[in-house]
């Protein structure tokens, strides 16, 4: 797996760019900008589902979600650049593994939202509360993305081999 990722980054030029003088901080900045786009759109939609800014119809706020998807895609690209440029530092890092777990939970939570309650939620008029299931999903979503940020910040402190990870 490590060899495969390294081969990918070296043949595409990602490795050379990331290990140039400013490669890493530039991509880190883009990664955080992507996260803010996600938080500013999906996060605000979640907050509305939880009851903040009730005068805004949910269907209108949902129009911001494509911007959040763009932010997420930016993070997938930049995240892949990190992972493939130093795979040994990421794959065996408990903070990265926890981050992936919370991303997976957020993804399942989103699928659950669109499969079960999205239509009813979008139909919620101004000044009305979102369905109970939608509020629960919004709380899980916000908690998961906060956990993703926290785990992301912890990555640098649990780099192998200087960590206590018992399962890596």
């Amino acid at each position, binding site marked *: 797996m490590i060899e495969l990722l390294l081969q990918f980054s070296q043949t595409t030029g990602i490795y050379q760019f990331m290990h140039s003088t400013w490669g890493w901080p530039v991509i880190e900045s883009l990664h*955080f900008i992507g996260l*803010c786009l996600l938080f*500013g759109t999906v996060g605000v939609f979640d907050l509305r589902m939880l009851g*903040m800014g009730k005068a805004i119809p949910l269907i209108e706020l949902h129009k911001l979600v494509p911007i959040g998807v763009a932010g997420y895609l930016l993070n997938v690209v930049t995240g892949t650049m990190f992972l493939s440029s130093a795979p040994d530092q990421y794959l065996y890092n408990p903070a990265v593994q926890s981050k992936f777990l919370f991303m997976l939970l957020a993804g399942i939570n989103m699928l659950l939202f669109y499969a079960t309650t999205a239509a009813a939620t979008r139909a919620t008029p101004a000044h009305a509360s979102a369905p109970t299931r939608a509020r629960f999903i919004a709380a899980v979503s916000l908690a998961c993305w*906060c956990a993703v940020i926290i785990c992301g910040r912890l990555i640098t402190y649990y780099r192998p081999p200087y960590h206590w990870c018992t399962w890596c």
Partner: protein
Amino acid sequence: MGFVVGINIAISLRLTGFAASIPLAPLRKFYPLHWWCVGLIVLSGIGLLLAYPAKALTNPVFYVKLLALTMALLISRYFQNFLAHPDTTAAHNRLIVKLAFLTFLLWIITITAGRFLAYTNSVLLASRFF
């Protein structure tokens, strides 16, 4: 930081005309959470500054970040007042759109300068000066 920048992006997007059907006035309900998170940023920022004062204070990038952050927050306050008492004259609307675009730029500078701080410091500990 994610909440602060995120809420600002959402409101600025609306002010630039994106998703224009979102009513403006209720967006100010997100500002209390925004200012609580600003408080958290200030507290954690002071903590980090106290831990490594020489590292930040000797780095020009730190002042770029501080300036961009301060300007972005002043514009946030201006937007909050605007949403509470909207002045919809054409000239003022043009100013609001320009400020909303400026906000995007200021947050990008704040984030980028913040990340570059870790890579551009020339001094780590104040003990170097004693």
